[in-house]
């Protein structure tokens, strides 16, 4: 532990904890961007949880006499090529994308945090070797890597979660590692070491709580990217498989008739995706600002 680092400790620590979790939440609720994003997000979460109760029609029921019907009083968003109600499919379709995105972001965050903690805290050879692999994976476009592996093992909900989670792991590990490197210089870790605490225990009980705000911000940002990735893979036909209602999958199934003027079958799921990612971004952006202040 070098002298200049030790001198900076009190300032760094007093800055870090202006108040508890309650005051953070209160500051968030005062931000209009957070509220707007939160309301849209809540709407889709309710749709995901109770979609089949809210939907006016059965999302998989086909009406072959009313295919490609434009928006009307009976079908607000029209019907698709198989005569299914687009509004119902949009409402129920929120489930698959939210489930997969959140699950893969959780998986990536947990693995990435563990990897980042280990790399940052242990340093040395572990850091060097893992760092090379992380850099190599980061050098590849995320969608291409995910695409390659999903083509390889076949699309299913489980595969999507695993592949996206694994692809995100190095990205999160890099963020966590750099936060850990800052913490490692601080006095409280030296004290913990002098008290005889083991490496794993220090990482879990001392370092982790202090890098948690950074991890939370990274998590919300990752959920946004996960939605992007899931929707993209579904649009390419390698995501959630029909007849399960899914925004990206429904666009994939119906964009062929877009040029014929049947725009409602693709536009409404597309707008649903856009509203969800914008909502996530508003939430992530305000969380980042509040935690940085």
């Amino acid at each position: 532990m070098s002298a200049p680092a030790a001198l900076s400790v009190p300032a760094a620590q007093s800055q870090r904890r202006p108040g508890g979790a309650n005051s953070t939440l209160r500051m968030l609720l005062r931000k209009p961007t957070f509220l707007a994003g939160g309301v849209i997000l809540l709407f889709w979460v309710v749709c995901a949880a109770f979609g089949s109760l809210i939907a006016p029609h059965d999302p998989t029921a086909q009406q072959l006499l009313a295919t490609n019907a434009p928006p009307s009083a009976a079908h607000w968003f029209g019907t698709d090529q198989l005569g299914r109600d687009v509004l119902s499919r949009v409402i129920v379709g929120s489930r698959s994308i939210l489930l997969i995105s959140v699950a893969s972001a959780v998986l990536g965050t947990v693995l990435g945090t563990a990897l980042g903690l280990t790399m940052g805290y242990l340093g040395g050879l572990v850091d060097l070797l893992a760092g090379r692999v992380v850099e190599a994976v980061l050098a590849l476009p995320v969608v291409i890597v995910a695409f390659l592996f999903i083509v390889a093992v076949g699309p299913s909900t489980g595969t999507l979660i695993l592949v996206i989670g694994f692809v995100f792991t190095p990205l999160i590990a890099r963020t966590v590692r750099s936060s850990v490197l800052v913490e490692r210089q601080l006095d409280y870790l030296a004290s913990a070491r002098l008290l005889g605490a083991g490496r794993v225990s220090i990482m879990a009980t001392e370092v982790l709580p202090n890098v948690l705000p950074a991890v939370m911000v990274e998590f919300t940002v990752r959920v946004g990217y996960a939605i992007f990735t899931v929707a993209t893979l579904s649009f390419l036909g390698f995501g959630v498989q029909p007849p399960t209602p899914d925004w990206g999958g429904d666009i994939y199934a119906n964009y062929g008739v877009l040029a014929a003027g049947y725009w409602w079958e693709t536009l409404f799921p597309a707008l649903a995706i856009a509203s969800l990612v914008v909502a996530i971004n508003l939430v992530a952006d305000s969380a980042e600002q509040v935690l940085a202040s």
Partner: protein
Amino acid sequence: MLTYILRRLGLAVLTLWLLSVIVFVAGQILPGDPGRAILGPLAAESAVRALDHQLGVDRPLIVQYWTWITGLLHGNMGTSYSYRAPVAPFIGSALVNSLKLAALAFVIVVPLGIGGGVIAALYAGKPADRIISVAGLSAATVPEFVSGIVLIVVFAVELKWLPNQASAGAGAPFGSQLRHLILPAIPLVLVLFGYIARMARAGTIEALNSDYARTATLKGLPRSVVIRRHILRNSLLPTITVIATQTGYLVGGLVVVEHLFTYQGIGNLIWTAANGKDFPMLEAGVLTLGAVYMVATLIADVLYTVLNPRLRLGGEQ
């Protein structure tokens, strides 16, 4: 300087090799065997085995990898299962098409992103900054096919201003090709705008807070001159790196955009190969994209060093 470039080149080759291993492994764990995929479910087992043998996919993995990688190094990318023809010409013409689309997207987004970022920085914390930052971030996370569909609905289906297909046909004049590529380029522009603007904003803010900017202001230079001569020159350096790293992103986005606008680029080629389990085409396509990305980041790093006098002179000492 030279040693830096050589080391950077070595790292790029290493990453490319790692990519080749990843691509090969992913191609090998694909379920179902290629012979069966080509001949269909009704073909006799003996015919499938004979074709597998002819394709060489019944040999040990390490032998297959060696044959594939040495072939690549000699410029032989293999034979497509679907077309029964060498892969290389397909990749070549598709890559040219993709580069046209990517070039158009860059020509639009680079001035737009830098301009947006600089404006956001000059009005930091004010509504203009918040709008540019939040809009840029949101646009960056809206998948390309979502904005693409909105564009197709509005400009191709309803207004009929622009075609909804990107291909102008073989030998079409430049103007017609350009017209066909405008709609496909916009989703890519939207995704890239946020990143470039954010980097330009951060660089400009850093330059604005610097001592030399304060000196320039205090010695009485007009604000416009300070911004043009002292701030922009320094703030744009990191932006160059971001622009080049975003090529990787662009490359991923191409698969989606080319698929949506039925454009014969490398992204669409990969998609078709993946659907048809055409491994040689898929592997060669992904590896080509990886190589393009490596070259772009390499150029960015070298350019960054060349443009930054501190690094340039530091390296020569």
